[in-house]
Every structure is written in structure tokens, then in C-alpha cells.
């Protein structure tokens, strides 16, 4: 059976923000996981867009494509790649890129995002988003990898800030400087994951508010929000684990509300990958993000006018 042709949607078109009285809310989406396929299909108007990991759809047929094809007829889609290892030493795998290109052509996602991280080395895939030193050498290499990826996919991609448990003594610049320069050199845009930013700040002993202020906001094309686990280091200090397994934490909502007026209209996504809630609970988290951003923007305009 030939794949059904997806209704045309410009690859660059981001989902339209849903109309609200104030008209200020950004589009809000959720990460789509198989247990939610049927619920999402039954209620496609509940969110403004969906995000999937394209690696999970690199198969010939079956339920994955059945549901994604059906959902794609109702909703814009964002691809969130986890396997290109763009921050690593090895060039991105051409065969993998070719498979991703086919999937992109089939589903026409409005964004394709990847990570400031590496996940493969020397023929082993580590199934994790691993950290790299923020050096000039790594910046040059990753810029080349991003450019190569954009060439192969025939489109601009987004790069997301990672959640860190470790940093490197040899880093020569801040994460924000690295991302800004990466965007400038490769032409990519950025995905600001506010949960990752907060997790990294706590784990590395950085100031999350300063990090947010330093983040190259002009390049941000999408926002991620997610939940983390709160653990303790041996010295009693906080250690945050980026589990995507619970509601968005209050400090992350605070950072989001603060930046939302500056990023009006930028799509915001709730990531929830472990201990999945039921569909309505997930939808309510996205609605909260939409509402919070709308309120923050309305308030900012009000303050500006007054």
C-alpha cells in the first residue's frame, strides 16, 4: 500500500496559534507516544501540534505509520531527532540521514530539531544525549555536522540545549556563546528547553536566570518544557535528573513565564516520555503552557502601555 500523501503544508509554516480573546497564546503541543495514539486521534483539537522522534518511525509500515499518518491529517508535526550525534567526533551517518530525509518528505514536519550533544562514537550508539566541551574545535566540527545535516535534509534545523550532569574543564565559552555561534555559522535555529536549562544550572552550579538572559533569544524557534526528578548529591545539594517523567516544575514555569513575552508566538511543547500520564492530563499541561504564555504577554503589554 503506497503511503497516503500528506495534505500539503509548507515545511516552514509553524502551526497557527489558536485564537484566544487576547490573541496572545502561542501554539502548544505535546510529545506523541504510542499509548496516546487513539486518544489523540479521538480529540485532535486538544493540542496545536505533535512532536515525535523520527527514529521511532523508520519502519516500513504497521501501527506507527498508520496512526502518525492519520494524526498528521489533523495536526502539524514536529520531528525531534535523537540519533544524529551532531556534537560527536564522527560525521553524521549518511544512510541514516537519507532515511530521515524520506520521512521528512513523507510527513512534512514544520520543524526538525536535534541536540547540542553526541550519542554515537566509533560504531556504538549510547542511547543518551552526552555532553561535550564547549571549545572552538568542537564548535567548528559541530557547525560542519549541522550544515551537512541541513544539506541532506534540505531544510534548516533547530538545535536544543542539553541537560547536563557534568561539565568540562577545557570548555572555552559558555553554552549560550556556543549555541549563538553555532547558529551563526551553520544557519540553524535553536530550541530552548527551559527544563534542560534549569537542570543544567542546578547540576553545574550556574545561575538559571543569568543563563536565560544570555540565551540567544533571537534564534529560538521552539520551546520545550518537561519534568525532572529532584535527587540529592552526597553533600546534600540538589541533583536534578532529566526524566521527562512528571509535571513541569515550578521554577521551570517561572523561567518560562519570564521569557514568554520575549518569545511571543514561538511554539511550546510538553515532553513527557516516562510514567506517561493519561491523555487529558498531558493536554492540560500543554493548555497551562499556552495560558501562562498568553497571560505573561498580556501583562507585559499592559505594563508597557501603562
Amino acid at each position, binding site marked *: *500500500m503506497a503511503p497516503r500523501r500528506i495534505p500539503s503544508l509548507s515545511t516552514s509554516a509553524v502551526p497557527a496559534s489558536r485564537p484566544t480573546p487576547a490573541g496572545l497564546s502561542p501554539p502548544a503541543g505535546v510529545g506523541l507516544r504510542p499509548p496516546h495514539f487513539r486518544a489523540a486521534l479521538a480529540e485532535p483539537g486538544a493540542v496545536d501540534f505533535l512532536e515525535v522522534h523520527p*527514529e*521511532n518511525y*523508520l*519502519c*516500513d*509500515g*504497521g*501501527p*506507527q*505509520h*498508520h496512526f502518525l499518518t492519520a494524526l498528521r491529517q489533523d495536526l502539524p508535526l514536529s520531528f525531534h531527532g*535523537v*540519533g*544524529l*550525534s551532531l556534537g*560527536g*567526533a564522527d560525521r553524521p*551517518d549518511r544512510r*541514516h540521514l537519507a*532515511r530521515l530525509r524520506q520521512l521528512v518528505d513523507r510527513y512534512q514536519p514544520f520543524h526538525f530539531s536535534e541536540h547540542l550533544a*553526541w*550519542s*554515537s*562514537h*566509533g*560504531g*556504538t*550508539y*549510547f*542511547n*543518551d544525549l*552526552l555532553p*561535550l*566541551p564547549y*571549545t*572552538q*574545535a*568542537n564548535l567548528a566540527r559541530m557547525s560542519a555536522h549541522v550544515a551537512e545535516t541541513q544539506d541532506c535534509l534540505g531544510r534548516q534545523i533547530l538545535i536544543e540545549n542539553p541537560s547536563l*550532569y*557534568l*561539565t*568540562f*574543564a*577545557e570548555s572555552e565559552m559558555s553554552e549560550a556563546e556556543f549555541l549563538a555561534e553555532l547558529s551563526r555559522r551553520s544557519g540553524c535555529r535553536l530550541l530552548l528547553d527551559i527544563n534542560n536549562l534549569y537542570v543544567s544550572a*542546578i*547540576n*553545574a*552550579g550556574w545561575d538559571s536566570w543569568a543563563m536565560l538572559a544570555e540565551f540567544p533569544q533571537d534564534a529560538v524557534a521552539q520551546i520545550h518544557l518537561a519534568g525532572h526528578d529532584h535527587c540529592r*548529591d*552526597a*553533600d546534600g*545539594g540538589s*541533583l536534578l*535528573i532529566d526524566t521527562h517523567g512528571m509535571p513541569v516544575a515550578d521554577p521551570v514555569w517561572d523561567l518560562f513565564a519570564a521569557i514568554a513575552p520575549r518569545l511571543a508566538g514561538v511554539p511550546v511543547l510538553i515532553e513527557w516520555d516516562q510514567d506517561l500520564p493519561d491523555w487529558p492530563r498531558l493536554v492540560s499541561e500543554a493548555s497551562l503552557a499556552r495560558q501562562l504564555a498568553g497571560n505573561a504577554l498580556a501583562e507585559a503589554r499592559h505594563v508597557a502601555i501603562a
Partner: protein
Amino acid sequence: MSPSPEQAAFPEAFAAALREPRSAIPARLAARPGVDPAVRFAIYRNNMAAGLGRVLADRFPVLRRLLGADFFAALTDAFIRQHPPAGPVLLEYGALFPNFVERFPPSQHLAYLADVARLEWLRHCALLAADAAPIDRAALAAQPPDVMARLRFTLHPSLAILRSPFPIVSIWRANIDPANPAVVPAGLPGENALLVRPGLVAEIHAVPASRADFVERLQAGVALGDATNLVGADLTAALAFLLSAGILTGFFPVSDDAARRSDPA
């Protein structure tokens, strides 16, 4: 600008330390002041094993129930260390797992486990296989009897057959529902599993050896009449099964010339 030794070592040293749990961690890692980087490095080591362990647990649920969660985790930990994924498409991860189960010393005395794992892997593959529309039954029924015997069929891309000396289909059925206690049916003969996914669900049938032979002959392009003769199957019953299970997706008549060439007489 030539890279410093630290840069040249990245990510080689990090990757090597991830793969060897007892090795020293790479030099010059940092975290929040007062925190031992080794503790933080352990999070990355754990992420890899835990994430891939979840993938395998989802993919081999019956094996996991038969072994218990702890034993299964020990098995997957060992497998992940020896056979980490070669690429990022985890849909393809686990093909080597059944053979690993077969050779894993603590489970070797339970010989049926590897075949259960093989069945679960084939079921996973069936869920990812290409789609195909079912055969046009009316057009098939309209074929005259003499043409019928000379038909070749296309079979569903998800079709797979697994022959086992153990009652793998009965074991699978008895353990797939987590609401029931894990059980290994005793005193049953070996079973041949036929897997096919005509719609969204991968179906597992236990079939007699002759019917497995019959399906494999058709899959190899043998004409219906010849396949029936070879396995001695009852044509009507066999066809009814193929149709109801959604195994057939198309047919084309063999030309007289081709039929004569392939005629064993």
C-alpha cells in the same frame, strides 16, 4: 590550530569509560563545586543501561515475565554491554538477543526461553513490516478450477514462521497478559508459530508442520496445485486458513509455458 591532547581525547575517553563500568572516568570533568564527577558520570552509565533495558523489556515482555524482572535485567545488562546498538534506530535493536539468551549460562537449562525470545522478536518485526491490502476474494473465487491450481500468490510482508520443539505459542499466550500469573504449560508438544499482521495487530497462530510447509512453498513462488501436492494438504481447508488469517495479498496465474517447465513430471 591543532587540538590540545584533551580535545583529541574527546569523546574517545568518555565513550570508552561509558562502555566499561569499572574503568576510571575521563580526566578534567567537573560539576557543581563539592560534587565528585565520578558520581555524576555514573548517571550517564546508568542512562544507557536503563534506557536500552526498557526497550528490551517492552520488546520481550513474555521472556521478562518468565524470568522475573531481576533476572531479566541481569540478562539485558550483560547483553547491552556485549552488544550495544550500532545505530540510533532502536526499532532494530534486539535482533541478536534471542541467540544471546540461548548462550547465557544461567538460562541455558531452560532451552525454550530462546525460542520464546525469537517469537517475540518476530512479533516485533511483524509490527514494523510493510502494509499490504488483502487479496481480492471475489476475483480469486471467480477463477476456474484448472486455473486455480496454477495460481501463484503474493503473501503479506509481515509473514514469518518459527518452528520450535517447545510449545512456544501456548507459552506466549499463557503469559502475554500481565494480569495472569506467569506459567509454563507442561506436557505439550512442540509448536510451529505463524505470525502475520494483516491490520494493526500481529496475530500468532499455532499451525501443523504441513501447513507451515505449505505456506513456505507458496511464499517461495510454488503454484497452488504443486504446493498442495507437495505437502498433502487439503486445499479447501488450507485456503480457508490463508484467507481468514489475512496471509494472501495477491495472485497471478502461471503461464502454461512456465507451468510446463516447473512440472516435475
